[in-house]
């Protein structure tokens, strides 16, 4: 649609700036035609695809190798990889999408999936030619699926879990818990015992509530869910209050470090975090971070199932999350070729052998079994963990709705307020609910 020219603009000034303003406004209004950038094809049938991802240099190297392997088999396709770090990645993606200049293949996160998909920026992969999801574990597709379309293809399975440092347990003389039967009370008691035995040199556990996943698990254990399938907030103020009361229980039992410490740890880089520096015996973490965390800690770490209300692992609310997704821009000029490349990344053994489990455990079961022997010990352990909990999972957890990507920052803020004693659990819970609802559109 056409933009209204602001009535406030003074005619003379506007005339002077006509060229610049007109082209800018035209394009902002998204009707400036297809500018397409350099993702075009040329007369000789050669096609260039732009492919963007975030991540460290290890990921960049592996992905680049996969690209080269693909290009060898497809001499008519050139894939330009664009890499970058997390926060800049999203600024750049938003800017390029706004300018109608988005890359063809986009590494997507759950947080922003619906943000882009609901506004028509992403292609429905169900309609894409050349993409096969037959070998995928059924549950793993759900996370990228809504409104009858598939907008993000799971690129690696992840599950929220507790990571434990057996060396610290041993030093403290505390036995490792049985994670298939432990309850929140067990968890609190064991963590408090660890803190006591460590006598200031460390603490039992990091706090839940430094991101939204622990709250989601808590809600799922109590018959609710953070998000609903139709894109609303699904957790009640009562359950958020109960969750924060549990957090305070941990604080009062000295199972978790001081408020300052927890707050500092929230935004610490993985290597600088208390788990990596050996200050914590347990922490909350995504399962695919095990390898990186083990390396950072210099110790062999172990994944544990999260505690539940009644000590039943199959009722602890766990679910498979897409660690990240493959999406295709809806404005790509080469949907078919882009889909074929995504198909290669997801279903081809050659690609699997290059990429391994760097983005999480492959959702394609054939690829998963093919690469398992090649994995580093920690990656193999997280793959096994994912496999083990498979039988205990509940329903898939719906992706956050538009505006839901903000929830992590919001819960961090309220957790800080509660831990510092600046807000009571019920007040923080209400504040949390109101604010999240305010963000949803």
């Amino acid at each position, binding site marked *: 649609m056409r933009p209204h020219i602001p009535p406030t603009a003074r005619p003379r000034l506007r005339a002077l700036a006509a060229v610049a303003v007109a082209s800018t406004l035209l394009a902002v209004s998204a009707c400036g035609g297809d500018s397409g950038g350099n993702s075009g094809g040329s007369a000789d049938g050669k096609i260039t695809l732009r492919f963007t991802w975030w991540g460290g240099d290890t*990921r960049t190297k592996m992905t680049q190798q996969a690209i080269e392997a693909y290009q060898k088999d497809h001499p008519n396709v050139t894939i330009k990889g664009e*890499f970058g770090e997390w926060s800049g990645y999203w600024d750049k993606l938003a800017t390029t999408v*706004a300018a109608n*200049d988005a890359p063809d293949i986009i590494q997507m996160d759950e947080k922003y999936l619906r943000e882009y998909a609901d506004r028509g920026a992403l292609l429905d992969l169900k309609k894409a030619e050349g993409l096969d999801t037959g070998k995928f574990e059924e549950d793993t597709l759900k996370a990228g699926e809504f409104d009858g379309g598939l907008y993000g293809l799971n690129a690696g399975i992840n599950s929220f879990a507790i990571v434990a440092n057996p060396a610290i347990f041993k030093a403290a003389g505390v036995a490792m818990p049985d994670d298939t039967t432990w309850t929140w009370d067990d968890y609190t008691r064991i963590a408090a015992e660890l803190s006591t035995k460590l006598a200031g040199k460390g603490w039992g556990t990091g706090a839940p509530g430094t991101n939204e996943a622990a709250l989601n698990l808590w809600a799922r254990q109590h018959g609710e869910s953070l998000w609903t399938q139709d894109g609303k907030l699904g957790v009640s103020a009562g359950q958020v209050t109960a969750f924060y009361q549990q957090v305070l229980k941990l604080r009062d039992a000295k199972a978790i470090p001081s408020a300052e410490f927890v707050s500092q740890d929230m935004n610490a*880089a993985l290597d600088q975090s208390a788990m990596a*520096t050996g200050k914590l015996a347990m922490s909350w973490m*995504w399962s695919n971070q095990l390898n990186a965390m083990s390396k*950072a800690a210099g110790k062999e770490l172990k994944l544990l199932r999260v505690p539940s209300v009644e000590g039943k692992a199959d009722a602890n609310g766990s679910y498979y999350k897409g660690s990240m997704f493959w999406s295709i821009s809806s404005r790509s000029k080469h949907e078919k070729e882009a889909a074929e490349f995504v198909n290669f990344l997801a279903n081809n053994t050659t690609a699997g052998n290059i990429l391994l489990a760097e983005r999480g455990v492959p959702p394609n079961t054939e690829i998963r079994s093919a690469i398992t022997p090649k994995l580093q010990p920690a990656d193999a352990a997280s793959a096994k963990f994912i496999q083990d909990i498979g039988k205990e999972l509940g329903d898939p957890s719906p992706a956050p709705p538009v505006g839901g990507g903000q929830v992590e920052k919001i819960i961090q803020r309220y957790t800080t307020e509660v831990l510092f004693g600046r807000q009571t659990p019920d007040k923080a819970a209400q504040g949390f609910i109101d604010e999240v609802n305010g963000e949803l559109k």
Partner: protein
Amino acid sequence: MTTETMRGTVAARSTAGIGWTRIRPLVIHLALAAAALVMLYPVIWMVVSSLRPGNEIFREPSILVRDLHIENYRVGWNALTEPFTRYLLNSAAVVFGSVLGNLVSCSMAAYAFARLEFTGKKLWFAIMLLSIMLPIHVVIVPQYILFSQAGWINTFLPLVVPKLLATDAFFVFLMVQFIRGIPRELDEAARIDGCGRGGIFLRVILPLMVPALATTTIFTFIWTWNDFFSQLIYLTDPKMYTVPVALRAFVDATAESSWGSMFAMSVVSLLPIFLAFLLGQRFLIKGIATTGIK
């Protein structure tokens, strides 16, 4: 030369004793050295970290290194899709264009604002100041659209052309302030000698504002070298990436990061700007005091 406007006396007299005069340099040195040490601690920590194996960086509380782990430099240099040399050269190209652009275009605009009388001067000056005040985050999208319509994405043009057109109003303002510190009598003298506006600008103003030009060079160099956001947005092909964009590719907040390589390459990328500062600062002291005009 400005004697006719000056009168009055200076009343204060030095009362410092002779002993103090001897000790004073020593005290100043000690104070400066102590301050320098405190200020440099984080920098030293960074250099030390670049010489440690990646996984020891955060676990080792001491600042002393036992053995030099230069591996980080070798690995970091080749860790991304291009050797680090590439990013250094790209940054150098952008910096060169930016410095040149700012020096020429900003000094011209500043001369007009500081010395010439023209219609609409106040308005233009206010607009110039206004253009510094809008946060980049809301203009970046329209600007990106503008440059992408021009087909300039993934070239250095969106980074350099604005500098050639004096959009860094900060420096225009800086130079205006400096030119206004130069006595007008000098312009007059040159005019009597037959210089036109251009002649005065080239022969009187420019030589006298060397400190301001040096400041502009140093700042443009450093700020462009460090500028992350616009370089990130406009450069898409890794072959075109500049140093700050490449540096962040070592870090992933949620997964494995190569801190050793990151710190090593950070140290490497600090060297050019540190050298630029070392060289540039020598021109800072070539003020009026040393250009023969007293």
